[in-house]
């Protein structure tokens, strides 16, 4: 199991490094068009490592830009879902009783909803800006986190050190912040790794449909979409970003699964 963790972590770190450094090392930039080399195949000629697209733009640089977007979404959306989920779950679990029942019933209700459609609705209603995508994705993904954190808090609440804090006259907000939250870190880290692929999936899905990141910026989802139109003559335009997206998602899934099996044997399937 630890081998899977090592392999996926190494892969993700490498790809992150290449995404940061690659475009900077490449002689091309992501908007420059070269009409002499439209749809050039991948190769070392002209340093178009991943070939060029139908406008003659360098695909290596564009793909790495897409990876950057993917990774930024992963980080920002996970942070948003982390903050909301931990706060919500810890309060529900710690306060307990009727408050807990109502709060968790609300989570169950939201679980059943087609959130992605609400995100699209948001995109239609408001301007399609980058930040909104991140926040919206984070706002979807907190549900799992809230459930896990609540379960953990329920058992933490009965522990002696919480009892001691109560007796010492510490208020509820402070107990949650200073005594409960630090003890949640382990499990939260594991589940963040598992929500990351979901966040990436939503962003790439929106960009694929043309509702996410807008030209000339790009993301892996948008690249797959433009590759779809060129797949008969230039299959690399489709296959490279598609494979990269699948590999990143798979690496995060394996990493999360591995960490969960390692630290939290009870919850594993």
């Amino acid at each position, binding site marked *: 199991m630890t081998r899977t963790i090592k392999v996926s972590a190494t892969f993700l770190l490498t790809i992150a490094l290449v995404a940061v450094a690659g475009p900077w090392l490449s002689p091309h930039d992501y908007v420059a068009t070269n009409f002499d080399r439209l749809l050039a195949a991948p190769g070392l000629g002209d340093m178009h490592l991943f070939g060029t697209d139908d406008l003659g733009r360098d695909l290596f640089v564009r793909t790495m830009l897409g990876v950057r977007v993917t990774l930024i979404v992963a980080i920002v959306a996970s942070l948003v879902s982390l903050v909301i989920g931990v706060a919500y779950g810890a309060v529900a679990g710690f306060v307990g009783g009727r408050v807990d029942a109502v709060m968790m019933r609300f989570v169950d*209700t939201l679980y059943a*909803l087609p959130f992605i459609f609400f995100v699209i*609705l948001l995109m*239609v209603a408001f301007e399609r800006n980058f930040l909104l995508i991140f926040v919206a994705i984070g706002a979807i993904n907190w549900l799992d986190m809230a459930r896990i954190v609540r379960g953990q808090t329920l058992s933490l609440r009965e522990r002696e050190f919480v009892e001691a804090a109560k007796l010492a006259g510490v208020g509820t907000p402070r107990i949650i912040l200073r005594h409960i939250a630090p003890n949640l870190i382990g499990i939260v880290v594991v589940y963040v790794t598992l929500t990351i692929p979901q966040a990436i999936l939503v962003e*790439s899905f929106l960009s694929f449909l043309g*509702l996410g990141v807008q030209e000339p910026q790009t993301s892996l989802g948008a690249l797959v979409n433009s590759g779809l139109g060129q797949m008969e003559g230039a299959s690399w335009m489709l296959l490279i970003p*598609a494979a990269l*997206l699948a590999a990143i998602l798979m690496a995060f*899934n394996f990493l999360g699964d591995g960490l969960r099996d390692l630290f939290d044997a009870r919850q594993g399937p």
Partner: protein
Amino acid sequence: MLRYTLLRILGAIPTLLLVIALAFLMVHAAPGGPFDDERAWSPEIEANFKAKYNLDAPLPQQFVHYIGGLLRGDFGPSLRYVDRSVSELIGNAFPYSLQLGALAMALALVVGVGAGTLAALRQDTLLDRTVMGFAMTGISIPVFVIAPVLILLFAVKLGWLPAGWSGTAGAGRYVLPVITLALPQIAYIARLTRASMIDVLGRDFIRTARAQGLGTATIVRVHALKPAMLPVLSYMGPAIAAILTGSVVVEEVFGIPGLGQFFVRGALNRDYTLVLGIVIFYAALIVALNLVVDILYGVIDPRVRYR
């Protein structure tokens, strides 16, 4: 059982209202109006338009009006498809999505449960690891990657199946879209089935059945399958939502004139009423199907009825 069913139905109503209110507010809180990007009109014409679409009333009144329309099955006029109502568009498009979704769900259940059970029976063998490896891959690869790759392979390179919907007839055009939609669900269901089957097969009543000399096939079919299906059944809600989401991509990629395609077109054209109508329709569908799943759960596992 009747009490349980009624309680479930009553519980679904607030959910539905919440969804409608949320979606309605989101659209109406948007900066700018639906006619903003058109040519500049004289104020009189714009006022006329607003009156026609009931946009001049205060928001609560518009909401009540909208709900009243919904109750009669009227989602209002489409803002971009001239002279078509949203209900009409949904009515024409939904049958395609329904066919695709139902076929994909059936395929996912049969293959997923079968593969998961096999993996559980042969736990820790090569077969098990192969099935689980495939399942992990299936979970990780998004629908919009599966679809083009399948098209590239089976339609463009091998030429076995049609790549698109229009211009072809017959069952062949269903194959790729349905498989694309089903694959991730097959993967999830296989993983769930394997885990819960392993759990159930370790219980005492299975040991008793074995001690009585029953064969593995009989034990699985008669004794283990039903309790092992409970987690799969509770996954049906999210699965339905995932298939609906996936159908948006699949219809777009294969050019199927279903609900998902209208949804994306509506979103790109800012057809507020169409997008709002489809979101509400999807949500109502999901709430209703979840209700069915909940009730089925009560039928299979009597314990939940008394919680």
